[in-house]
């Protein structure tokens, strides 16, 4: 747990990072460095997107799997790292 905290702190202190959320495989945020209402909103919406992205990859090739997702928008970018039981969401201002 201490290692998780330390890693999250390191990510959070990177230039441009606005927030970091760890979400369970059911879409429930279990650790976050963002305000609560934003966290819940991000967690739920991105969980659905990750499920969709994963099934897209698997539909194309059942032996393949999703490793990383980067969603870039006008205002920021969201990076998602899925794992077996959790996924990590980082919201960052894109580097100029």
């Amino acid at each position, binding site marked *: 747990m201490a290692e998780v905290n330390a890693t999250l702190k390191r990510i959070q202190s990177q230039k441009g990072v606005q927030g970091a959320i760890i979400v369970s495989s059911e879409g429930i945020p279990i650790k976050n460095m963002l305000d609560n209402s934003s966290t819940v909103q991000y967690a739920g919406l991105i969980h659905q997107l990750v499920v969709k992205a994963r099934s897209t990859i698997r539909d194309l090739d059942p032996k*393949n799997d999703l490793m990383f997702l980067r969603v870039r928008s*006008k205002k920021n970018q969201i990076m998602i790292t899925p794992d077996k039981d959790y996924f990590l969401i980082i919201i960052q201002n894109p580097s100029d």
Partner: protein
Amino acid sequence: MRAKVEETLRRIETHKGVIGTIVVNAEGIPIRTTLDNSTAVQYAGLLRHLSMKARSTVRDIDPQNDLTFLRIRSKKHEILVAPENEFLLVVIQNPSE
């Protein structure tokens, strides 16, 4: 204008590591591709749905925001999706080492 588009597409298509490119129209149909037709059709349909989902995710979080790019990395390769108006440019590449 047409020549410039061709030139850009060709530059992408011949880039090191690029496995294939697809230009998808508003109906989800590939209108230009370096892949075989059935593969292109499959990618086009699935990626259109995924990029629509990504776009609505971004807009649900902030209605004034919009999706500009999507990068999907899998074990075997990486798919880049650039939406523009109703079109999609899809590039499949071997991830850079």
